[in-house]
């Protein structure tokens, strides 16, 4: 029987939740790296026992940890994230130019094709790659050539928070950057271009053709349909059927189209999940009801999933990296909240139950199915 491993990054450490594939009885391991912010941890799809973790602190800076035994033991690896050449400047909040300065690693995305290759999305926004298991890191500076001098941080910092690999084309990658937009490379990261046609941000970006400045919150793809992308934007849930060349809105009947995470069912490429949040100034669910919304038609028609989730007085948020799906035959869906709950569904979202209720605020959730 397979083991399901849920990797949880929180404000005060990492937690690893394990169960058999029934997903009813869970063991909780942690906190690992107690007291540190763990922005993200994720395992290699080729070697699930190899897990990378971003450990960070406002006091002591950035650490990258690697486990080769499924999270039982950890070793610090490389943490030098040096921008290539003279990084120059980007736009600051007041419209002036501001030097590029490394702050932290937001996420670690292990390669689909090589267990020693892993990508890191960092703040101030840039993409780094390691080809030696995290020991050393090199920037892919072509990304910042895509009008990087016009990028401006949002309230959460100028972070590169989403990396999506095309399983059919190793040369194609997508990234998203808070308040800067979404970008694609078709040559393995050498050159990039904005993919924002069709996105609308009327108030902040009156120019309908603005290539940068859209606040993309997260991007998801089903591996069987790499040309189809789903996006949760600051406002609006969007879809592209041509690798981001053009986007159209699929918010449909959602009670709010503001939110952070978006995920796709493991076996149904047209089944999509979002967690609507009331607004950008009220980061909690509408009406105090924690509802995951599922569309089984690729968007527009959404149904509220509420069974087992609090339906009164709930004012938590679900952050952009805090939702994931597993690959078991009955697809599991998982998400974590800023209130420290991890909710799991073993039936594609029909019913939910908390795995744990009182962790520190959850920053990220990933899931592995280990044979």
């Amino acid at each position, binding site marked *: 029987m397979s083991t399901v491993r849920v990797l949880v990054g929180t404000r005060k450490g990492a937690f690893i939740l394990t169960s058999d594939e029934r997903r009813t009885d869970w063991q909780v391991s942690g906190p690992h790296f107690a007291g540190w912010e763990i922005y993200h941890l994720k395992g290699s799809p080729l070697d699930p026992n190899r897990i990378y973790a971003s450990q960070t*602190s*406002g006091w002591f800076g950035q650490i990258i940890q690697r486990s080769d035994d499924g999270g039982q033991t950890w070793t610090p690896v490389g*943490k030098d994230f040096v921008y290539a050449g003279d990084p120059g400047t980007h736009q600051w909040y007041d419209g002036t130019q501001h030097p590029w300065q490394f702050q932290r690693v937001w996420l670690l995305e292990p390669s689909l094709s090589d267990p020693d290759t892993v990508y890191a999305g960092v703040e101030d926004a840039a993409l780094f790659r390691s080809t030696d298991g995290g020991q050393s890191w090199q920037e892919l500076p072509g990304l910042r050539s895509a009008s990087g001098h016009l990028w401006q941080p949002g309230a959460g910092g100028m972070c590169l928070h989403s990396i999506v690999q095309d399983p059919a084309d190793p040369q194609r990658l997508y990234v998203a950057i808070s308040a800067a937009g979404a970008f694609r490379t078709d040559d393995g990261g050498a050159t990039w271009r904005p993919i924002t046609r069709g996105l609308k941000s009327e108030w902040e970006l009156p120019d309908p053709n603005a290539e940068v400045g859209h606040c993309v919150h997260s991007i998801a793809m089903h591996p069987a349909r790499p040309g189809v992308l789903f996006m949760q934007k600051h406002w609006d849930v969007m879809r592209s059927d041509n690798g981001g060349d053009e986007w159209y809105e699929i918010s449909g009947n959602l009670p709010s189209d503001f939110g952070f995470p978006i995920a796709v069912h493991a076996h149904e490429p047209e089944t999509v999940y979002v967690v609507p949040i009331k607004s950008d100034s009220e980061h909690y669910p509408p009406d105090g009801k924690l509802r995951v919304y599922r569309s089984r038609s690729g968007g527009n028609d959404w149904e509220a999933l509420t069974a087992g989730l609090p339906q009164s007085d709930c004012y938590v948020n679900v952050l952009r990296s805090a939702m994931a799906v597993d690959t078991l035959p009955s697809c599991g869906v998982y998400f974590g909240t800023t209130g420290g709950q991890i909710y799991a569904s073993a039936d594609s979202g029909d019913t939910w139950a908390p795995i744990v209720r009182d962790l520190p605020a959850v920053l990220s959730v990933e899931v592995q199915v280990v044979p």
Partner: protein
Amino acid sequence: MIRVVLPHHLRTLAGVRKEVELEVAEPVTPAAILDALEARYPTLRGTMRDSATGQRRSLVRFFACGQDWSHEPADAPLPAAVASGAEPFMVVGAMAGG
């Protein structure tokens, strides 16, 4: 032997107890102590001072003999009591946040 006291998170990271003892050649300065500390425990590199610039991280403070050395030059000689090991050189996480 120079004695260095590290904050909890750096002790955990380096896998050491509260105090670390180091051989540091004269003159004993904050920079010389940090160089020796990072050489012994490479995982601490970048946690107390920026790897690229060598500047003290904003929320890390240095104390010796009851005095705040955070704003003193990194190559300023520390008191004889630190150089002799009678008093520790203290690396402290600044009080910050809520």
